[in-house]
């Protein structure tokens, strides 16, 4: 009998000026998800069910870039994607271009378990979701005020951003800083709230 182990992540590339309370929020969510996975492992749930359970929790919480709280496209909409893989027989499932499926990872699991394919995308994936009866919601459900603000910043800087959150508070006070040529992820460093 081996020993279990678990790891979770919420994205790489973190805004160096992320306010402490946001850092604390992130740590609490990560701890909650670890504990969710640990109690499932202690109840001898198989690894494939544990990873799906934990990622569903991360998708439902708006803090990280997935499910509710997803990054926005140039049009201000949400298009989500996910994949899951079971080591023993290397079975796998993946979805892309989802706009209404509340938990993309569970649809990826259904692609693995209930379809003859390993990857479905856009309208085909949405159609499969309805066939399988998974929970669907309006696209607005996934859009948060924070991300609407982030998209505005990204458009003003004419850039594409990956995983991090620019602090919502303090932004208006730091714009007066001397315009430094230094860029962070395509945005002028002066955008960030000084420590």
């Amino acid at each position: 009998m081996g020993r279990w182990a678990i790891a979770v992540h919420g994205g790489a590339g973190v805004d160096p000026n992320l306010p402490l309370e946001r850092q604390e929020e992130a740590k609490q969510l990560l701890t909650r998800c670890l504990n969710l996975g640990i109690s499932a492992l202690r109840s001898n749930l198989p690894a494939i069910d544990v990873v799906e359970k934990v990622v569903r929790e991360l998708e439902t919480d708006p803090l990280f870039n997935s499910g509710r709280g997803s990054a926005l496209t140039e049009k201000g909409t949400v298009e989500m994607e996910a994949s899951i893989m079971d080591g023993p027989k290397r079975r796998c499932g993946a979805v892309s271009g989802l706009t209404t499926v509340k938990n993309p990872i569970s649809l990826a699991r259904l692609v693995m378990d209930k379809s003859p394919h390993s990857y479905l995308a856009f309208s085909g994936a949405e159609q499969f979701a309805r066939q399988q009866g998974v929970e669907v919601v309006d696209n607005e459900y996934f859009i948060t005020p924070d991300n609407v603000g982030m998209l505005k910043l990204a458009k003003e800087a004419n850039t594409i951003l990956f995983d991090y959150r620019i602090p919502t508070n303090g932004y208006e006070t730091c714009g007066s800083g001397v315009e430094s040529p230094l860029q962070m992820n395509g945005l002028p460093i002066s955008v960030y709230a000084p420590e």
Partner: protein
Amino acid sequence: TVGCVVVDREGRCAAATSTGGLMNKMTGRIGDSPLIGAGTYACDVCGVSCTGEGEAIIRGTLAREVAAVMEYKGLGLQRAVDFVIKNRLDEGKAGLIAVSKSGEVAYGFNCNGMFRGCATEDGFMEVGIWE
């Protein structure tokens, strides 16, 4: 992007990754997270989930690479993660989490931070953001 990797008491590994992609991305853009072997991979050796600059992760087939260097170079989990982060990303910025069938857990990243948490059955538990 969010992810979870697990090995259970039977030594079975699994990996899952989910994302909204990049802020201000073009509609129709597909990143690394749904691509098996790039953002997500699991076999009977390990389970891996990646995050960061999708285009770099795809080009480096990052998740599969961890399993490959374990299989073909005989590296342990943490050394495999360190090798892949150091040698397979070119100038790209990314991070990943991984577990091995023997109950180890590891992570690595070459950017300024990664939201991550890990725990093992012998009581180890860590939650962090920065280096």
